[in-house]
Every structure is written in C-alpha cells, then in structure tokens.
C-alpha cells in the first residue's frame, strides 16, 4: 500500500445512511483467495443491472465520477459484516478516503490497515460535501484536515499509531512481531507454555 500524506481529488457522493459492507462487496464475491481485482465488484448490485450493464444513474457510473479518490457517504458507513474485502474493493477501485458523519468500528479498523482513510466530519461540513458532488477537496493526513473548495477547513481525528503507519506506508503486523519479548513475558505470567 502506498503512503497517504496530502492529496486533492474530486468527490463521489453516496448520501444513503447505513451503507453496509454487503452493499460495498456482496458475499458472492468473497470466494476470492487474494485481495486483487475486487474493485470490479465494488457496489456491484448498485452499479450493474442483472444483465451486467452499468446503471447510468448510479453515482459511480456518472462520467464526472471517473478518477475520484474520495467517497462521501451517509452516516454509519461500513456497518455489518467484518469482511475486509470492503476496504480492499474500495482501494482497488481507486478510493483513498471515505468521508461520513460516522463510520462503523470494524470497517474503520480494516480501512486503516489498507491505505484507505476513514474520515468523520461534523454534520455541517458533511452537508456541504453532499450538496456538491464532484467538487474538489484536499485531504491532509499530516494536518488531519479536509479542505473544501469554498475554503472550509474541517479537522478530523485519527489514532496516532494508525496515522504513523499510513503516513509511512508501513503495516501493523511488523510492529506486533517486534513486540515478541513482551508477548512472551505475558504468556509466561499467564502460564501459557510453548508446546
């Protein structure tokens, strides 16, 4: 995954609340054994009709949406299933940030591990973003701000460790593996001996 620092992109807006991970990537696409290519299946049942043709009214299918890296979505984005295929699909499609008024816990955790920035903003900022699909925004993970075309600057929070990993493009597993001594000491204390 590539580091995230500061980038500018137009937005795509999906204003529906409670967009669940079954919508982001339907379960029938979870038979994959790699992370690759899931972008083609992103929002599959909203993007495509039963005959496989693009639905022209769906936000991602409008010509203005091509190349957008920021998804603006309704409240409680990413609820439901823990499938990490959801952030994999969003990332593979080209998204690098999702902005909402709230984001579900497991989806948020999964996104932070995959180069997709989950951003929570206040309702007023969100309303401006929803009202202007395709508008350019600048996301800065360094400053923890989203800057709108009209100059509005909204701060967002992200836990310091995830921010460090995202800024540097490193993953958490490497960090955990380096904690072997502490983990071993805990196991000894708790009476878990190696077999």
């Amino acid at each position: 995954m590539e580091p995230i620092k500061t980038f500018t992109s137009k937005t795509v807006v999906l204003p529906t609340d409670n967009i669940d991970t079954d919508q982001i990537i339907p379960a029938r696409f979870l038979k994959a054994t790699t992370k690759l290519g899931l972008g083609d299946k992103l929002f599959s049942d909203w993007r495509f009709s039963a005959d496989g043709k693009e639905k022209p009214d769906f936000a991602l299918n409008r010509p203005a949406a091509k190349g957008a890296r920021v998804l603006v979505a309704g409240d409680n984005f990413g609820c439901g299933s823990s499938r990490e295929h959801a952030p994999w699909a969003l990332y593979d499609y080209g998204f690098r940030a999702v902005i909402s008024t709230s984001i579900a816990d497991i989806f948020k955790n999964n996104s932070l591990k995959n180069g997709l920035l989950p951003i929570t903003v206040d309702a007023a900022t969100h309303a401006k973003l929803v009202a202007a699909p395709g508008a350019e925004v600048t996301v800065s993970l360094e400053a923890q701000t989203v800057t709108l075309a009209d100059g509005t600057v909204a701060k967002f929070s992200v836990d310091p460790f995830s921010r460090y990993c995202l800024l540097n493009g490193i993953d958490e597993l490497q960090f955990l593996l380096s904690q072997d001594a502490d983990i071993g000491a805990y196991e000894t204390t708790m009476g878990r001996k190696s077999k």
Partner: protein
Amino acid sequence: MSHPRTLFEKIWDAHVVRAATANTPAILYADLHLIHEVTSPQAFTSLRERGVKVRRPEQTVATMDHSTPTTPRGKDGKIPVLDNAAAAQIAQLETNCGDFGIELHALGSEGQGIVHVIGPELGLTQPGGTIVCGDSHTSTHGAFGALAFGIGTSEVAHVLATQCLLQNKPKTLAITVEGKLAPGVTAKDVVLAVIARLGIGGGTGHVIEYRGSAIRALSMEERMTVCNMSIEAGARAGMIAPDDVTFEYLKGRPRAPRGVAWEAAVAEWRKLPSDAGATYDREEKFDAAAIEPMITYGTNPGMGMAIGARVPAASNPTLAKALAYMGLEAEAPLLGHKIDVVFIGSCTNSRLSDLRAAATIFKGRKVAPGVRALVVPGSQRIKKAAEAEGLDRVFLDAGAEWREAGCSMCIAMNGDQLKPGQYAVSTSNRNFEGRQGAGGRTFLASPLTAAAAAITGVVTDARSLV
C-alpha cells in the same frame, strides 16, 4: 486502588499485554482464535510472505461454514461442492491448517458447523477469555462472559502471527432488561427490540453488557442469540455475566476443564460478574413484559417493529429507499404479507432449542403451497441430536427441507439463496439489500414466527397457531 469494575473491564485488564501509550494502542492477547475459509486465505498468505509461523496453533481452531453447501449428502456420504471457487477456498483452508498445524473441523466431519455454534458446543468458549474470529458475529461467544469480537483479515494475520491485536479500549453500554417475557416472546424478539431502539449504529464504539432479570432467566442458547446480534446495533461485542446456567452448559463439554481444574475454573469465573457500584458509559433499560414478537420491515436490522404494528412512514430518504427496495407500502400492516421462502438457521437461531421451537409449529401441519422452507442445523452435532429426537421427520413430513450444517441462506454464497424479488422470513441476522441473494427481500424474525409463516404462507403472529 481497586475501583468497582465491570465484567468487560475485568477481562480487558487481564488480557492487556502492554497498556496503551500516547502513540500506540493497547496490545491485547487473544486466548482463542477461530477461523473459517472465507476470511483467512489472505492472512495465511501474509504469514507465508514473511516466513512467519502461527504463534499458538493450539489456541486456533478452524471450520468450514460460509461457502460450504448444505445440500443433502450423496450416495457416497459426501456433501457435493458444486462451485469451483468455493472448492478452491475449502481446499486452501485444508492446506493452511495442515501446513500450520491447526485443528480443522472439515466439511462433513462430525465436528463441522457454523464457527459460532461449534465453539460453545465443544466447550472452547469459556468465561473470562478473549475470543476473536474474522466474522462480525463472534459477539455470540460473549454469552459465556467472554470478550469476543469480530476482526478483519489483517487482524486475523496479526493473531495468527502474534496471538495479539492492537486495540483502542471501547466504551461500555449496559442493556438492562427487567421483568418476565410474555409467552411466545423469545430471545430473538428481545434482541430485535434492543436493536430497533438503539438503531443500527447506536452501539458503535461500545461493548454491550446485557443484564437484568429477563437476561438471567434465559438459557445459554437464548443468551447466544441475544449476544450474536450485538453487532447489528454497531457494538463489536455483547456480553452476559457467567452464572450457574453457564457452568451447567459447559460442564462435561469436550474442551471444558475437568475434575479439580473444573472446580478451580468455576471459582475464578464466579469473580467475573460486574462489581456492585461498577459504572457504564451508558445504560438503556427495557421492560421485558412490554416486548412483543418482533419482525423487521426494512433493509437493516434496526428497522424492526412489533409484528402487529404498521410499517412506518417513509419519513427520510434512507427509509424511503428501504421501503422501495422491500416493495412495502408505508403505514401498512405486515401481518398477512405474502412470503416465498422461510429460512430457519444461521449462527443466530440454528441450535437445538431453535429447532425444537420451530418444530412445535410444524408438527402435524404442512408448509403452505408455493412456499420453500429450509431448516438448516448449525452444526453436524446439532443435526445428529435433532434427528435422534425425530425433529427431522417433523420438518420433512411438513414439506420443509432438512439440510446439512452451515451458514446457508444467511450469507447466500453457498448455493442457498433467494431469487430476485422473493420475500423470506428468516431467523438469521441481516436483512441488508441482497444479503440472502441479489434482489431478495428479508423479514428477520424468531424461529416461531418463521415457522408460522411457512405454514400459512404469509407473515403471521405465531401465537395465533398455538
């Protein structure tokens, strides 16, 4: 020094390998890691890429449930896997478990079943432990007074490699249900009522502890149904303090402690319930007697109501979109609405007591013409136990299908699914658009309500059939 602590805090504190710092989250130890075929392949790939072994294979248990078919066995005694992608995923789990030394309950074997059904069944799920799995319904195991929550595939790799997770401490939410449930009102109705009030995002950032006299009065299987759906209110975990009901269920299970070790374990487990005076970040109170049989009308589990109520007005765009997808008229009753399929199963309601409850409605009756009814036991052991008491005959004689164990139509990635436009009454946990098959429309309800719909062919209050 020692302030009164909640059940959650006691378990959290006992599993912190290293406390959070200004720059890093807490490192939390996982006692038990359950894995299945769908959310683990990429995690094993990650281990192989780094040349890392599984740290604690003896604390890791695998089964196959999501993409596995539930079609009855062939003449060779095997369950036919028809789909190449599913077959590849199943084969990969076998290889991964073999290579890394992990216990696997493979398709068709005696111990196979839905991951959240077999953990408790084997006695692996025990009070006071931390349990994780790449599945959001891991909250089920909290019914035993464990801290159990779903994780993503990156975290599956973290636990495989280090037995640990990086976690920010969640807040606590007490759901207190006092009083006595009315006849015909089940654990499923309790949790659907809780979610209807909290909303699908209402528990985000929290761990729920269910308490109160109505919760204490539930059996272990009923408690699992309640904790299972905590995630449908956005809470990663739901817990119930362990008590004699818990210990009675666990005693003698294959992986439960025995003899002196059992007595010692119970003595420790008795210390787990929240201390008097322990405080929660938030509390919601429910009157058990006021809870009615529940049903969902919309496209998330928070869109639920008493079965006799009317569908709400389409008062906001999200609700309007949901009613349009469901093909329902605003402010119309749901009772009497025609249905096509009934699904009884899933990690929410596929245990023996669920099957027995459904059988009380099916017994001596016939499934309505044109309705397809599937009864899918949660595990091979449940299937065997149900057959030993003749439940399979009750379902088959009524014209329902009796299937092999698995997630089946709850996830619709294994061949069991709705056709576009069909209506189902399902005992599962999610009614999201397309969850049970693209274009399918789901009403979530209890096994009693589902069975009643199978018999009448319409949404029915099961109390009218008793």
